[in-house]
């Protein structure tokens, strides 16, 4: 089981669309995959048309009660979802009450290790106890970055936090919602590519078809496979997979 966190401190950068599309592409390459929607806004749960409800709430899950029975199959073969739930709003508080507050998520995932090849964590924007859990549970963090100052700043904050806490999780930032008509975007992309060697090559364009996802409630590749945006996600997935390498 390879756990991929799709993470950003900032909101609105395309985390959920990334998590949904990567999970879908993973399942399409014959790998049984799970997406865990950790955001109480339940956006990825919504994309997959699943009710945002987990029996017993997150408290029961953290108490390690049978995660198996709370997973839902999506419309796509080999792709399942652990949906979000209202109770996720209290996730930080509940984690704090655990004996090992920083390992709560990892413990929930443990029994699924032999079942799923990939687990994608769709994370809410913040830097909190939940984030620390994510950094421990995930092997890599795929970080969408809008090529604009505010987004860059949060990427630096993440770097600093990880450096300080000496966590081993590998960060893979990539440019998201790139608008090639905007001079600022182009300049930022060029500038940052010179500065950071860890940036993934794939870039996700700003495209209306991506917004369509929330209307169609489907992953891009299932309704707009031959679009530029969809192909960008495929490139992104190939790159992530290559960087992950063999275990």
């Amino acid at each position, binding site marked *: 089981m390879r756990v991929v966190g799709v993470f950003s401190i900032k909101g609105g950068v395309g985390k959920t669309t990334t998590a949904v599309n990567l999970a879908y592409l993973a399942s399409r390459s*014959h790998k049984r995959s799970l997406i865990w929607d950790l955001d109480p806004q339940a956006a990825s749960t919504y994309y997959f048309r699943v009710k945002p409800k987990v029996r017993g709430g997150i408290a029961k899950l953290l108490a390690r009660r049978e995660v198996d029975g709370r997973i839902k199959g999506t419309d796509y073969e080999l792709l*399942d979802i652990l949906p979000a739930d209202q109770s996720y709003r209290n996730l930080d508080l509940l984690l704090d009450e655990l004996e090992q507050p920083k390992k709560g998520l990892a413990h929930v995932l443990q029994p699924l290790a032999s*079942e799923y090849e990939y687990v994608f964590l769709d994370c809410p924007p913040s830097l909190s106890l939940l984030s620390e859990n994510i950094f421990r549970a995930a092997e890599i963090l795929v970080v969408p970055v809008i090529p604009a100052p505010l987004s860059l700043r949060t990427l630096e904050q993440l770097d600093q936090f990880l450096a300080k806490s000496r966590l081993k999780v590998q960060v893979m930032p990539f440019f998201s919602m790139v608008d090639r008509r905007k001079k600022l975007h182009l300049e930022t992309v060029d500038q940052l590519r010179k500065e950071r060697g860890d940036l993934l090559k794939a870039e996700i364009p700003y495209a209306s078809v991506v917004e369509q996802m929330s209307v169609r409630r489907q992953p891009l590749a299932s309704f707009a496979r031959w679009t530029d945006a969809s192909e960008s996600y495929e490139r992104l997935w190939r790159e992530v997979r290559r960087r992950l390498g063999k275990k």
Partner: protein
Amino acid sequence: MGATPSPRELAIFSGLTIGENPRAFRISATWAQALELPPHLRLRQRSEAARGVRTYLDTFGWRLHAAGLALVVDPQRTRLVRLGSGETVVAAAALAAPARADTLPPELVEVACLIGVRALLEVGAFDRQAEIVEVANDDDKLVARIEEERGDAGGEPLPGRVVVRPVRGYAAEADAVAAALADAGLEPAAGDLLDDVVAAAGRHPEDYQNKPRVDLDPDEPAAGGLRRILAALLDVARRVEDGVARDLDPEFLHDLRVAMRRARSLLTRMRGVLPTEPAAALAAELRWLGTDSGALRDLDVYLERLGGYRAELPQAMQADIEPLHAYLDARRAAALATLREAMDSPRYAQMMEAWRLLAKGDDLGQRGGQGLSVVAGAEIRRAHKRLVREGREIGPGSPPQALHELRKTAKKLRYLLESFQSILPAGALDRVVSELKRLQESLGLFQDLHVQAEKLAILARAMLSEGYGGSDTLLAMGVLVGHLEERQRDARAEVGKRFRRFDRKAVRKRVRAMAVESKS
């Protein structure tokens, strides 16, 4: 080779659940019109049609089926599915049979563990046409699939079926769909389509066991019981011959040899139960084929071990052992040709015919009219006594040959116990067999190490004279022989320990109980 987990263990470690409710029905032309779903569910327009040859793969002995799984190969991909629910456990690219564990893609690691040394063979195939209709809820979320499946195997149409495939987490909805289908007048269909496909190929799932269990009656005449065991063993031999000749899987030869050895052992142990002359003649012929097939079996075992040998050598020497591989391959091809020739010969055909006639006839030997349990009990006691006597005679100075003989005697006792298991008291049998098995394992290991060391030395000389490999290879083989001899010493100590456990009063008492109880 490491120990292979049992299907059950594997199912546990891989987190698979076994046996979900099948929701299958016999097809009717009008099911879609008659179907009335509950108000929160509806059939979705989007449906999918599939056409193509579907093949089922399993080992000859149905290891996947026994674990509640089936390996389904469609033109584009392979899926490991759960029997019953039809849920896909894992998918991979399309496979071609025969396939062995080491050639399987990494996604199918569970399959590789389950099949162990066996090959995946085609157990059935059919030309499939399927239509999948999706069932969605109020949110237009897929909650179940209804699959209408038709097909024909070998030109014969298969009974079509309508199957509800649940989506994980939506069992209640799948149940509701199944209930609605039943209300629409559809008849439940038992089993999986796999059953029908396999039946069309003239088989049925789990129809082959290399150790046949024959239900016997303790009071029946000994000749009748023995004949039925011989018939079951003949059946095993007949089923695997083709696999041996086509060289599909080395395990076919192994099973053939075991069936023949069991038959021969019973004929000799139970002398006087069947007419003496044909029984002795058949035993002699079985011995002939046993010897003639031994070379191939040895080479199969060697080739399987080669990976382990390589790993035992220091890194720098590992490549030196390669000429041994080439040499063994060449020898194996020759041994296979020899065996094929033997199995094509009139002598082989006559032997099999003699086997059939002996299993079918009704003449009795002088002991043939005695009760089966009396004869079996006496033979078990006798074999046990001999094993104990031989074992006690073995000391630190005994030659390896003495241990080899002990191993053969132990095998004979085991064959008797297993052949007559249905008329022996289960508790005593289990206990004796488990102690015997442990003893046999230790004897097997010793023998194996001894023979390997000896054979490697012989092989080295033969390779030298036939021009395979140079002095580096010989040196590497010498290192291996050294390792083997060292391990042999440990194995020998283990045999002593296990024999002492076997030679306890508690075990002897149970053997006696078996003989007495099977008499009554």
